[in-house]
Every structure is written in C-alpha cells, then in structure tokens.
C-alpha cells in the first residue's frame, strides 16, 4: 500500500486546524466621519452561506439611501450608510454592532439578516438604547425579551407566516387536500417556529405528519433526509429552508430519489428570485409555494418608485429581501422625520404609537415591536413569482395544485 508520509504526531496539529474552520471574517473599510451627515450603521452576512440572500438586502438599503438623499436627506442632513460584513456569524455580528455604536459613532442603526443574527444584534442595540429596525428575523423569541427599541419591518412574524397557506389548504375540497405531510427544517430560530406552527395548524386540518426532523445549518448532503421523506410518501412537503442553498439542496436530493410531492412549500428560498431558479432549474420551480412580505405589484406609496429604481440600478426586479430592507429604511425615515431629532427614546416611543406607511403596507407595532399585518402566499408559475393570496394582492387566478413532477 502506498504510504506517502508520516503520521501520528501530526494528528494534533492537523485536527487542531479544524477549529480554524469556525473562524469567520468581518471585512470592513475605514470610516470617514462626515461633518454634518447622519451616520447609519448596519451589519449584513455579505459573505458566507446566506450571502445570496443578504446581497439584495444591501441593495434595498442602498436604494432607500439614494432616494432619501435625493429628497434632501434627514433633518436637512445628508445620510451615510456603513455596512459591515458578519459572514453569518453571531460573534461577528455582535462585534460589528458594538463597533458601529462605539467606534463608528453611528447615529442610527438598521438591522441585519436572519433571526440567528438579529437575536444577538438586537441585544447590542437595546443595551445601548438605540433604535433597531430589522428587515428580517421574525423568530418569536426575538420579541419576548421585553425590548423597547426593537421593531420588525415585515407585516408579521414567523408565528403568523403559515396563516395564508393554511387558509389555502383549508379552502380546498376534501379530495384535493393533502392527507400527509413531511416537515424537514433547518435548526434555526426562525424556521423552527414557523414549521412548528405549520405542523400544528395543518394537523388540525387533518393533515397527518409522517416526517418531522431538523438538520444542522451546515448540512450539505440531503440524500438521507430525502430518502426518508420519499419513504414516508407525504402528499405535502413543508420545508423550513433558510436560504437558496439548503432550499435547493433538499429539492435536488428529492429529485435524485425521484420523489416529487403533490404540494411543496419552502420558507425563504423560493423568494430569492435570481438564485433559487438558478440552483434548481427554472422548470423545477413550478408549483412551489412560499410566503412573502411584499408584492412588486401592490399600490402602496413609493412601491412603484422602489421597483423602478431597483430594477434600473441592478438590472433585475427586487426580491422580498430587498423590499424588506427598503421597508426598514422607510420606518427609520418616518420616525426621524416625525420626531425631528435623533433622540432614540423618542423615536421608539413614536413608532410604538403610530402607523407607518411602507411598501409592504401600513405597519403598526405592539409593545414588543411586532407588527399586526399578514404575509402573502406566493407560488412559482411558468417561471414567474406569482401571488396567490390574499385576494387583494393576487396576480394569478388560481394556484397550481397538484405540483407537476420534476423536469
């Protein structure tokens, strides 16, 4: 047997280096304090496993910033945005917001992406008594800590996310409803809650759970999960995906098992308009459901301008993540303009007692920072991201059911 080296004593060195895999980098650039400008700080996972989802969020922030500055800025001052990269690492995001507050002297903060990151990042903001408007991060546990400065810039949180889909299933004639469902989900504070709610609500509708498992965030190989799902033969698969990577990973593994459920709902991944169809093949998106916070077709104030500006700047229509980031900017903007100062306590008090008109609709928050709106039910149809529910927002007459097989 060819042995091409020594071993034994290098084991410690070699295995020790495995720990370096956990190292994430926080890339940033030097700051240039503007004399009279308002500095807004944010951190986003621009590298790492959800980079594809946070890039549109960054672009949404940029579009909002450009529009605000084109309109004269805030309080008569130009607005600057400094975004640091946290690589989807909780330690890095905490370090970034501490830096934005204490070293960069940010006047205002905007939130990061995902519940995993917003959970610790919002704590940093709360400790420093700074307003924290988050474009993403709907996990219930984020809003149960009695925070005063935290506000969610989507119509509803993870708890309410299943509502429209469950309503849709409930509206189907009995013979068209799924009888069984599988619930694979990433071990994540957001998708955990959502999938639990799905399972609870659908069970009440008589849909029997035949598979229910979590997988680790760094899972790449979905073959065993897909094999178990295929073995259980569910009519419906409700997948708690965090980004296109795991969303596509499970779809590809199901394809390899040649198992195509009659209905499929995935969180987050299908709303990534560029990367999702690219990852699973456009034809395979047909009939897949997801929820969305925003529709490009709604007639809420500034929505059309946002869609037009974004499409012009980036060459493709905005995604849900871009719209949510823009919305967070709108919330911040409304509060600063109404209060007329950067007093963080007054800004939070104002948001707790007023409704803000945004591109996802009017947002009004309870004392936890949770809005009282509804998410939309969307579905891929003929290579387009269409809206199925509610009726006021729908862009197609009916949903595709059952889903066609994989192409």
């Amino acid at each position: 047997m060819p042995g091409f080296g020594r071993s034994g004593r290098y084991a410690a060195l070699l295995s020790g280096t495995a720990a370096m895999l956990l190292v994430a980098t926080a890339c940033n650039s030097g700051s240039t304090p503007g004399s009279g400008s308002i500095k807004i700080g944010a951190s986003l996972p621009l590298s790492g496993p959800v980079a594809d989802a946070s890039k549109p969020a960054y672009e949404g922030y940029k579009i909002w910033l450009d529009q605000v500055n084109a309109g004269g800025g805030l309080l008569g001052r130009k607005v600057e945005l400094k975004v640091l990269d946290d690589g989807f690492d909780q330690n890095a995001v905490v370090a970034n917001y501490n830096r934005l507050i204490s070293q960069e002297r940010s006047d205002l903060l905007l939130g990061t992406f995902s519940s995993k990151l917003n959970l610790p990042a919002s704590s940093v903001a709360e400790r420093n008594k700074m307003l924290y408007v988050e474009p993403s991060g709907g996990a219930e546990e984020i809003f149960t800590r009695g925070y005063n400065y935290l506000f969610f810039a989507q119509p509803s949180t993870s708890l309410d996310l299943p509502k429209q889909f469950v309503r849709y299933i409930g509206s189907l004639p009995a013979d068209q409803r799924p009888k069984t469902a599988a619930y694979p989900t990433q071990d994540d504070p957001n998708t955990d809650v959502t999938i639990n709610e799905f399972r609870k609500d659908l069970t009440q509708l008589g849909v029997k759970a035949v598979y229910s498992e979590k997988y680790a965030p760094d899972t790449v190989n979905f073959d065993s999960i897909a094999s178990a799902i295929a073995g259980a033969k569910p009519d419906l698969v409700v997948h708690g995906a965090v980004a296109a990577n795991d969303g596509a990973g499970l779809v590809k593994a199901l394809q390899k098992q040649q198992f195509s459920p009659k209905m499929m709902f995935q969180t987050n991944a299908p709303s990534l308009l560029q990367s999702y169809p690219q990852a699973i093949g456009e034809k395979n998106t047909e009939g897949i459901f997801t929820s969305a916070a925003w529709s490009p077709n709604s007639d809420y104030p500034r929505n059309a301008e946002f869609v037009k500006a974004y499409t012009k700047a980036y060459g493709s229509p905005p995604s849900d993540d871009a719209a949510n980031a823009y919305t967070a900017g709108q919330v911040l903007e409304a509060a600063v303009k109404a209060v007329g100062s950067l007093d963080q306590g007054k800004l939070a008090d104002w948001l707790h007692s007023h409704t803000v008109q945004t591109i996802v609709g009017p947002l009004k928050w309870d004392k936890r920072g949770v809005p009282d709106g509804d998410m939309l039910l969307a579905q891929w149809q003929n290579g387009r991201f269409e809206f199925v529910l509610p009726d006021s927002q729908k862009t197609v007459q009916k949903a595709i059911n059952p889903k066609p097989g994989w192409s």
Partner: protein
Amino acid sequence: MGTLLQALILGLLVGGVYALVASGMNLIFGVMQVVNLAQGGMLILSAYLTYTLWEATGLDPLLLVVITTPCLLVVGWATYYIFIERSRTTDASMALVTTFGLTLVTKGVIALIWGNEPRSVTPDYANRSFSVLGLRFPQAQVYACLVAAVVLTGLYLLLRHTWLGQSIRATASSSEGARLIGIQVRSTWAAAFALGVAAAGAGGSLLSVLYPFMPSSADHWIGLMLSIIVLGGMGSLPGSVLGAVVIALAESLTSTYVSPDWAAAVPYLAIILVLVARPQGLLGARLREDMSRA
C-alpha cells in the same frame, strides 16, 4: 431492513466521492506535512469551472474531470512555487497560515467572478435513479462514485508504479535521503502539491453534480477532508478511502436513525474519538518522534 440498506447504499456511494476529495489533501500532508487549507477553495473553484464549461459546451460534467484536473494541476503547481515553497522555509504554522489566506482569497475571487449565489450542475441523469429490489441508486451518485474510483486507482498506480510516484514516496519518507540518491526534491514537492490540488480538481467536478455549491461551501469541505484523513491515517491513501467510507456511512446512518441534526457533527466526533483511541488513524503508522525527523 430496506431503510438500513438504503442508508448504507447512499453512504457508500457518497463515500467514494469523499475519498477522492480527501486524497489530495492527504497526499500533500503526507509528503510535505503541510495542512493545505486552500484545498476546499480549490475544490469549489473546480466546481465553478465545471459549471461554466458545462453551461458553455453542454459536455457531461463528470467527463469534464479531464479538463478540470489538468487545470487545477497547473494551479497547484503555480501555487506551490509562488506561495507554499516560501512559507515552508520558516515553519509548519507559516504554511498553514498561508493556505488559510489562500482559502480566503480563492473564495473572494470566486465570489467576484461567479457571485455568491448557489449553483448546481444538472445533467439529465441528475434526477434519475436506478431501482433495484425497491432500493434507489441515484444515477449521479453512481456515476460520480465510479469516476472517483477510476481517478483514485490512477493516483494509486501513479504513486506505486511510476518514477514520479517512487520519488514522491521516497521524499515523503526522507527528503534528505531522497536528495542523496539523486531525486530533485524541490520539484518532487511541487509535483506532489500539484497532484494533490489536481485531485481536488477532479473531486470538484463530481461535487458540482451532487450538491449545490457557493463560495462558502469551501469551509464545509475542508472540515470534512480533515476529519477523513485524521480518521483514516495521515499519509495513507487507503486510509483516506477507509476514512471517507466510514464517515459517509456514519453520516448516513446517523441521519436516518438518530437525527439529521446530528449528522453534521459526525466528522468532528470522529476526530475526537480517533485522537483519544488511535491517534495515528485507522491505517496510519505510528512512528517514534525522534525517528520521524531522521
């Protein structure tokens, strides 16, 4: 019983690919005692190259190993002379830091060229399976495992039956001894490094068909490679194969019978168990500290 057999089949098929992926890193470590953390980046670079070539030409992505492997061989050769050789002259930790830096640079370059979006290579057979007695054999996995076996056999034969292979093994055993018998040690190190990276090139093409990939996927694969070669034994090609199969089977069985949540922890648990029970790995040789530097 069917569930167990299915889990074993999936584990064995992916184990073959894991073996190829890890063999290059093991070769480099065995010959030079350099932990090449850039190997994950090279693997993903090859996956992106495969994606681009497949999109442009429509050629079968698994057959594209005949293009990606030589491409990565050249990349490995250049990387050795430009970065690794210099850093090795100080101490092992400098080479480690250098390869870690190369990983970051590789991921950054990939992101600049191809973006941060996940990609998949989806030939016609990616969605098909062979069905035997009710058991599924995903075609992509079967073909990838066969290609991996061919490449690994080629690597084995090269190391065993060619002058270059004998030079590599002699240099791995003792670089001073190799020099005394007329072997060009410097070029042998470069060749070993290039071959190791070329193996990642072949592995990247196979992975591109099996799983979606993005620049950050490099981190996952480095962890897996390290686990495999620690388990199998540093410097042992058969050890890489055995370690890969054991880890792939353990992942598959854990996912099926315990929870998918625990499957990702299997490689790291393997490292801990090996260090406690058999530090040299399953097929690694344990040498005396004073002898190994002789």
